[in-house]
Every structure is written in structure tokens, then in C-alpha cells.
């Protein structure tokens, strides 16, 4: 087993990985950019090393600086989390050369799956169904239009190096191709340092279902069931659950789906934790979408129904241990559901809302879990992804899990910035969502057609008016709420003290 693990990431996932390392009695090293000196993952780690300025390209994406940090602290393994360098084959290779274990699959498996086009070819060869599309990156708009004509509109443009919805654009006609391609390429370049974009046929009304797999370095592969991730906004998952209410009704589909995931992993010579993503159409036909060669944001829902700690399993596998579990040991129980809480304003078209968290009350209680990189008094930086927390609930049934999440959202309060907490309160009260009848287009439709919740609206308005009036009368400053003035008073005091010295 390792002695000291460097976590090449930030935010909630870095905090979450540190928690498991601590439980395994492994020392931890955090790395941080100039924007993150006081971030939670730094607070939780045993050691921390500065790796450069705020822009990720100069810090969290710098292979050299991260390996320097590992060397200077004597870390013998690196956990890459998700995003950043987690699916960078060059990084995995550089770790190996530096004699530091990369906690994830081999560089060659990452490279294979990291190129979406090569992965498609591999899956086709292995008999795993894929969505029709181009196997090579698109050179320009003209070539893209030609390819789209062949495949048939609508088409989806996707970053070849990508994942997580970044660098994805839909084009419904030839006219839309040039703008969509430019945007996709620019986002792909910004997010992954690689502008290559390819094309796939857009499946109409698709569901996004994925399978979690675990593979050791001795050839054993098991799956941990599927996750339903169809609730997406701007091609970004916002809510995930397991089991999929859509697959749950069809045991024979689950059988074929999970078997395909294991075939995919085996074809790639895969080891460690990974996720095989599929699109599923209304006839329950599924198509390989991509394989994420790292821990997934939504791994907690799988953890809860299986009782596993996936980070612990990842570390054990990377240390060369064989899988402790056989497929027959995996007997998921109940339903787990996760809401991704973003620092975005749902009342203003989901504009990012970075800034000072002036107050934080997190829900807890029976079967509620919050994974977060935020704390009260911390300033959410503008430089990174706006995911500030994941709220997860478990229950014996989907209906009860939804009710639990609703209650937890009611108790969740983040002051100072805007978040998507209110958005989820709306979604989880929607009958279509509750019945499980949704696809990846659900949220956009729901946003257009939703009515304001008029339940108790008059009473709520009355209470809101009275509170606002009392607040106005008690501090006489309508333009600044008390908490903000307090926070600034505190900052001011700090600055004054520094000047005084």
C-alpha cells in the first residue's frame, strides 16, 4: 500500500478523496493555485503545495508542477479526481516515468478512450453498439456539413478530448454548422487544450444511462449497476440517480447494458474505476457514447446503494490488490439520487454566481449526504467549475428518496451567492420527473412550460413582505443586507489591522 497520496485536483472531489485517504491512514498532499490557498481541500490535507497562478493551464493542468509537488513531498501515488488531468494520458505516462503511481487506468487505456473517435472504432470492433458519426476530427465547417448530410440532421458536435458537456453543440441544419463548430472548438480548446471536434447523429429524446465498472490490474472486471443521468442542462448533468427508473422496468436491458460495459472495459484493457456512458432511445436501444476513464462526479449514488467507497477501491486497485468483490457480491439496495448544487442563478438564466459565501447551512439527518468543497466565509473563485456541492439522498424507494431530497433542499441555505437549490425544488415537485418520464431534453422543456409554484404563494408573499419590512426597519440600510455589511466589516478590520502593523 502507498504511504502518501497527492491529490491533483481541487474542490469537492479533492476534499472527498482526502477523506478516504485519511480513513485509510494514508498521508495526503493537496496542491493549490493562487486562487485556492484557503480552499477546503487545502484545509483538510496533511500537506499542501502551491503550484501556480489561478488559471488552470498554469496550475492544475501543469504536469510538471504537480510532479514537482509529488517529488518534493515524497508522495508515492497521485489521485487525479475528475476533470483537469484525470483523463490525460501524457500525465499518466509522466507519473509512471517519475515512479509515482497514477491512481487510474494505464496511459494507453486513457489514450484509447480519450480519443472519442478511436474509442468508437474499438467499440465497433468489440461489438458494442455506437451512434452513427465521424471517426475523425472535423477539419472545417465544409467538411462538417458534408459529414452531417451523410449522417442526417440533427447532429451533435463534440470535443474529441472532452467530456462533461463542454465543447458540445447541436446543429439542426447546415446553416447552424459554422457557428456551432467554432463554439465547440473554442470551448474544447479552453477546457481540454485540444480543439479537435467530431460529429455524431443526435438521438431524438435520448436517455443518458451509464454503467460503473471496477477492474483490477489482474484482468477481473465487475460492474456496480447503472446510473440514470438524463437530467441535463446545456449537456451538463445536474441530477443523477441509481437505479435508472427507465432500465429498472427492463431487467433484460440491464443485463445487456452491463454486459456491454464490461466488454467495453475488457476491450480497452481497462483497470481501476471507470464509467461507460450510453445513450438510450425510446425503444431501449442503447449506443456507446464514451468511456470516462476516472472517478465520476456522480459516484456517490452508486456508493450508497452498494455500500462501497469507490475511492478506497481505486486506491486498493492501484496498489495492485485484486478485487475483493465478485459480481455476485454486488447487490444494490434502494434508490440514491444526487443534485449538483452549482453557484449559478436559476432566476438569471443560470449565470455563474461566484463570490463570498456569507452563510452556509447544510442539511443533514437520515440518509442525507453532502459532498462539498465550500465553507462559510470562503469565496467561490471565478476561475473554475461552479459545482460547489453534491446533495445525495438514499431511500428504499425512488419516491421516498425524492421526498427526502425535497426536505433536505428546504433546509439547505447558501447566503451571499446564488445557487441552483431552488431549481431542484421545482424539478423534484414536477409530476413528470417523479414518474420517471423524462429524457435529456426534459429540463429545457420544463423551463419553458413550468408555472410558478402557486402553492401557498399568498402566505409566502405575506411572510416575505413582513420579513423585508422588519429587516428594513432594523438596520435602515435597504441597499446592503446585514450579513454583507458584517462580512465587509470583518474584512475591513483585517485590512486595517495589517496597515496598522
Amino acid at each position, binding site marked *: 500500500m502507498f504511504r502518501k497520496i497527492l491529490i491533483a485536483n481541487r474542490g469537492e472531489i479533492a476534499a472527498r478523496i482526502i477523506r478516504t485517504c485519511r480513513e485509510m491512514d494514508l498521508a495526503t498532499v493537496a496542491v493549490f493555485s493562487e486562487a485556492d490557498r484557503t480552499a477546503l481541500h487545502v484545509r483538510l490535507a496533511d500537506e499542501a503545495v502551491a503550484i501556480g497562478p489561478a488559471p488552470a493551464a498554469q496550475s492544475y493542468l501543469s504536469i510538471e508542477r504537480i510532479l514537482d509537488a509529488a517529488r518534493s513531498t515524497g508522495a508515492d501515488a497521485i489521485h487525479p479526481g475528475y476533470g483537469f488531468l484525470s483523463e490525460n494520458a501524457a500525465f499518466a505516462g509522466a507519473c509512471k516515468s517519475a515512479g509515482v503511481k497514477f491512481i487510474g487506468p494505464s496511459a494507453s487505456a486513457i489514450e484509447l478512450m480519450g480519443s472519442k473517435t478511436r474509442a468508437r472504432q474499438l467499440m465497433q470492433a468489440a461489438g458494442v453498439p455506437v451512434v452513427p458519426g465521424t471517426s475523425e476530427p472535423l477539419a472545417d465547417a465544409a467538411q462538417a456539413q458534408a459529414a452531417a448530410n451523410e449522417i442526417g440532421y440533427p447532429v451533435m458536435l463534440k470535443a474529441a478530448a472532452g467530456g462533461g458537456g*463542454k465543447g458540445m453543440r447541436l446543429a439542426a441544419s447546415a446553416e447552424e454548422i459554422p457557428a456551432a463548430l467554432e463554439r465547440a472548438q473554442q470551448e474544447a480548446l479552453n477546457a481540454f487544450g485540444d480543439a479537435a471536434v467530431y460529429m455524431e447523429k443526435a438521438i431524438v429524446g435520448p436517455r443518458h444511462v451509464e454503467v460503473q465498472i471496477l477492474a483490477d490490474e489482474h484482468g477481473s472486471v465487475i460492474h456496480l449497476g447503472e446510473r440514470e443521468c438524463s437530467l441535463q442542462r446545456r449537456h451538463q448533468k445536474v441530477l443523477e440517480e441509481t437505479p435508472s427508473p427507465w432500465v429498472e422496468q427492463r431487467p433484460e436491458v440491464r443485463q445487456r447494458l452491463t454486459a456491454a460495459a464490461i466488454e467495453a472495459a475488457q476491450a480497452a484493457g481497462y483497470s481501476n474505476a471507470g464509467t461507460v456512458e450510453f445513450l438510450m432511445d425510446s425503444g431501449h436501444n442503447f449506443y456507446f457514447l464514451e468511456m470516462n476513464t476516472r472517478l465520476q462526479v456522480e459516484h456517490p449514488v452508486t456508493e450508497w446503494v452498494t455500500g462501497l467507497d469507490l475511492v478506497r477501491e481505486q486506491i486498493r486497485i492501484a496498489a495492485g490488490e485484486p478485487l475483493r468483490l465478485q459480481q455476485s457480491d454486488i447487490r444494490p439496495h434502494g434508490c440514491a439520487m444526487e443534485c449538483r448544487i452549482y453557484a449559478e442563478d436559476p432566476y438569471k438564466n443560470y449565470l455563474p454566481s461566484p463570490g463570498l459565501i456569507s452563510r452556509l447551512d447544510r442539511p443533514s439527518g437520515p440518509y442525507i449526504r453532502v459532498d462539498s468543497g465550500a465553507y462559510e466565509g470562503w469565496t467561490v473563485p471565478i476561475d473554475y467549475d461552479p459545482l460547489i456541492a453534491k446533495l445525495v439522498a438514499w431511500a428504499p424507494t425512488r419516491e421516498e428518496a425524492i421526498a427526502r431530497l425535497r426536505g433536505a433542499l428546504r433546509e439547505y*441555505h447558501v447566503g451571499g451567492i446564488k445557487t441552483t437549490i431552488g431549481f431542484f425544488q421545482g424539478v423534484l415537485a414536477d409530476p413528470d420527473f417523479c414518474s420517471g418520464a423524462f429524457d435529456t431534453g426534459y429540463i429545457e422543456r420544463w423551463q419553458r412550460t413550468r408555472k410558478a409554484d402557486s402553492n401557498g404563494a399568498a402566505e409566502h408573499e405575506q*411572510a416575505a*413582505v413582513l420579513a*423585508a419590512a*422588519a*429587516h428594513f426597519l432594523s438596520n435602515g440600510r435597504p441597499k446592503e443586507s446585514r450579513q454583507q455589511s458584517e462580512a465587509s466589516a470583518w474584512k475591513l478590520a483585517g485590512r486595517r489591522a495589517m496597515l496598522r502593523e
Partner: protein
Amino acid sequence: MKLTVHVNGVERQLDLDKPSESGEPRAFSLEGIEGHADIQAIGPGMYSILLGARCFEAKIEKGDNGYSVVVGGQRFDIAVRDPRKLSRGSAAAAETGPRKLTAPMPGKVVRIMVEEGQVVESGQGLIVVEAMKMLNEIKSPKAGVVKAIPVKQGGSVSAGQVLLVVE
């Protein structure tokens, strides 16, 4: 204490008693409806309100034009004014004439798609600001001419900073 309150733009007249020494519920009259409210501060900008036996909780933050108040998962934009005090030439400024487009959040200007003096249509994309890895296109709110672009491509902007003026 008589107050003028705007709730999501609608004007309401409120009369709310001062807090009593003994902490009794405060009498109020809101648009003719009378009642008693027990309003307790439970944190900065956080209030617990009892209307009879009914419990409510309000969280108040500074909003664009007054307060943003959340009760029962619903958000209300509320402006409170003391009618005895001079109104400070409030709220809705002239919607005609030059329009300043401001940055909706802190970020980086990644692209300026127009030039000073250029004629633009309503809804036309003018400038792209990036924050938290999302590109946000700022569109023209009206047809007109770009009068000024006080920011530079690649520069950082803070929330509320003027990006562009359209007349």
C-alpha cells in the same frame, strides 16, 4: 410605521408596529388585511415568522433593486421605502436613450464581436464573457449604434462593470 413595499414590481401599502419590549407579536396591516406577526431574527438576514400558528422562514439578501427574499422555496424581489423620507429618484431609469450593458458576473472578456460606431440589431451578440469555464454571450437589448466599448479583449471585469454602450 407606514411603509411602501414593491413586491415583484407591484406596490403594496404596509403598516407594521414596532417590536415591543416584551416580544409580543407585532400588529400589521397589509393592503387592508390585518394580522399579528411574531418576527424573530435568527441570523444575519434570516427571520422566523409566526402568523398565528403558521411558521415561515425568510432569507433576505441584497438584490438588484432592494431585497431578494426567499420564503418556502419561492424568491420575491422586494423594495421597501419609508414614504416620509425623500424618494431618491428611484428604480426604473429611462429605458430610452443610451443603454449600458454591464457584466452580469465577474469574468474575463474573451471576445468582442462589434466595433465602436457599428450598427447593431436587437438580440445581436456583442461580447462574450467567460466565467467558471462557461461562455456567456451578451446580446444587444435594442437596435442602435455601439457608442462605447470601455473594456478590452482578454481583460477581467467585475460584476456590474460597463462592457458596452448602445444608443
